């Protein structure tokens, strides 16, 4: 029963209880999609119940399957929104079919997760992007959809960048800063864009923004920043020094599992909320890695009802750091992401701008 996931605290279920709850739900979802989605059924049949990769409860589906095939578990007239990944040029993006029910679950789950970090009160919000990425609401790119999703957690939205030139919109920023000086605000953007077009432009201008104990949520991978030798600590330090962001949280998520995101805690670890889990897999045989062992990240989520995306094998490497015992006090598994598997194809939300330059 999906409702039971909303009746428990988002980061406070001990592992035995969480595993039982999750396993029952995932098993039900696997059976449901096997009945309702022809393509998914063909995958289950191809292996047979005893030999499913990742186990019969929630077999592994590589995320790229959603690029190769339209996998949907609801009749076409119930699809109310199709999400696409930002994919690189010349490559087919993922297509994720949402019905009203799944979309609503995504919003509810994201709300539970976000309010546990930013509080129930909506704060004035700075979007570290330019307004045109959310203009055309018919085509939900991962970037636009991510921003629109986050905008519901703020008020008085202001875009920090002017347009495709990625220049800071000083006029908008100054008005926003004057209204919120010394206050906590909420900001969201994609990691690379936050660094390159916000933090670095602030740095070059020699100006600072006057917020206090402000919250910055960002997502989209460290690959480019690693190449520029920017560590998470340095990123946080600069965001704090230049704009008063005392609370900076990265998160790991993907368009194929919108809603059940993995947010970085105060201790710097990504956490599985009650709606989701991670399993790190050994590429040699897909068995589960031990704590501390690096492998390929599998993400599971109880939210996908209209498409068979409840158990996905990503193309990212990660390490499970522990379960129920993070210094931040949250329960559930916590882990670190090390970026794309070498040689796998390039994808991701915030790569689009710089790679087209």
């Amino acid at each position, binding site marked *: 029963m999906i409702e039971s996931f909303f009746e428990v605290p988002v980061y406070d279920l001990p592992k035995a209880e969480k595993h039982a709850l999750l396993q029952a739900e995932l098993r039900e979802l696997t059976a449901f999609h096997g009945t309702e989605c022809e*393509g998914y059924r*063909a*995958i289950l*049949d*191809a*292996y*047979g119940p*005893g*030999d499913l*990769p990742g186990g019969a409860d929630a077999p*592994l*589906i*590589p995320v*790229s*399957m959603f690029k*190769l*095939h339209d*996998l949907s578990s609801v009749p076409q007239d119930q699809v109310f929104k199709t999400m696409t990944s930002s994919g690189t040029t010349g490559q087919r993006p993922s297509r994720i079919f949402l019905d009203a029910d799944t979309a609503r679950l995504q919003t509810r789950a994201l709300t539970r997760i976000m309010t546990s970090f930013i509080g129930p009160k909506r704060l004035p919000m700075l979007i570290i992007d330019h307004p045109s990425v959310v203009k055309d609401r018919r085509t939900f790119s991962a970037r636009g959809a991510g921003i629109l999703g986050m905008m519901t957690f703020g008020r008085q939205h202001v875009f920090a960048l002017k347009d495709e030139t990625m220049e800071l919109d000083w006029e908008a920023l100054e008005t926003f800063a004057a209204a919120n000086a010394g206050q906590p605000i909420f900001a969201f953007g994609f990691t690379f864009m936050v660094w390159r077009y916000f933090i670095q432009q602030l740095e070059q201008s020699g100006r600072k923004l006057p917020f206090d104990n402000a919250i910055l949520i960002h997502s989209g991978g460290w690959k480019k920043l690693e190449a520029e030798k920017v560590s998470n600590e340095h990123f946080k330090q600069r965001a704090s020094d230049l704009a008063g962001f005392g609370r900076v949280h990265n998160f790991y998520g993907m368009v194929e599992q919108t809603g059940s995101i993995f947010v970085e805690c105060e201790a710097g670890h990504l956490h599985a909320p009650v709606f989701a889990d991670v399993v790190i897999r050994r*590429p*040699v*045989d*897909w068995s589960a890695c031990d704590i501390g062992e690096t492998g*390929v990240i599998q993400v599971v989520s109880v939210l996908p009802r209209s498409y068979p995306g409840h158990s996905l*094998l990503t*193309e990212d*490497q990660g390490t499970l750091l522990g379960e129920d015992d993070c210094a931040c006090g949250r329960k559930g598994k916590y882990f670190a992401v090390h970026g794309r*598997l*070498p*040689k*796998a194809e390039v994808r991701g939300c915030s790569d689009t701008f710089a790679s087209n330059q």
Partner: protein
Amino acid sequence: MNSLDKVRFVVPEGANIDALLAQRPLAPFDPAVIEFIERLGKALMASPQARRHPELVALGFWARGANIKRMKDRFDAQYPDALRLARGLAFHIAPSNVDTIFVYSLLLSMLAGNVNLVRMSSRAAQQSDLLNDILKQVVEAASARLRGIIGIVRYEHDQSITDAFSRHCDVRVVWGGDGTVELIRKSPLSPGGTELTFPNKYSLAVVDAKAWLANENKTPVARDFVNDSLWFGQMACSSPRALVWRGSADDIAAASTDFWHHVEAGAREANLGWEDAGAVAKLLAEQDNAVSVHASVVPLETNFISVVRCPIALLGEPNGTGGGFFREFHVAALEELGASARRNWQTVASFGVPKGDWQAFLLNAQPQGIDRIVPFGHALNFNAIWDGIDFLTSLTRIVVIDAPQD
């Protein structure tokens, strides 16, 4: 010939295009060429770095004197009443990816006596740099006459240069696959010019189920299959990417599972170029085939290889996954391959199918493709007859002399 100023000589140093184009060819199997090839072979065998690349070791082995002597004997015996001469200038377009095979065609062209102009790609893999270095050393140490028949050049793609060389050459040898062949064909040859092209190729394996079951030495056979298919990430033109079983349904059912377990063990032991991302790519390919054609997946312990059983209709379709991903098909008789065989089929690595069966099949079915049928363990070995072409015949001309003895 102004655009020719952009042509940069890599080997030999200080050479120039006019001198190369004015050069006279040599007689086939000139002793200086034979010596040069042997030296190159020895240099490859002596290089610790080259020994790490099996394809360079294979080239070194091919270049030994005994092998050249064998080729010469066959060459001499072919047309005893005619005289064979070099065609003249051979213009070679080398491929940009991993490929030592074009070096064989260069060496064979030298044996034929031709003057050789080689266009190297501007992007080249690491081992081809190594090969270039060794080739360069051996060329620079050779006599002026021998240096005179080799010109290895680089130039950015410029059709006017390719046009000029194409008009000028007597034979053009184009490696690099369909795209390169298509591009180079935009440059016309002289009316008498000839051409050898090497488009994209696809290879497979055919195994007789009864023969596999009866085989008492399965481990080395499986290891040969692993070497055939997993070197070069299964992406060489000769790497088998599909496996066809011949036999009764019962025999195939028994043989298939047993065979793949042996191959899996062999692949695990050989561990040729494992990539984590490759495991994800194979999982994706399994499921793609499941959804597209209702393929079933052969259960295996590990991800070193991955095998899907597919309907025969898919046999003609290319499988571009690589890294140890196989499509498996079942036939009762070889004849069933005829309808699927494509023009781009190159190598069949065969186990347990007698030569007579292959001959009968080829004659009766007249398949469009299939250039060579070789035993397991030989798929990647170069042969002077390649893609249906006898190099030494194609790179020479046959002069008929019908005249009294004295």
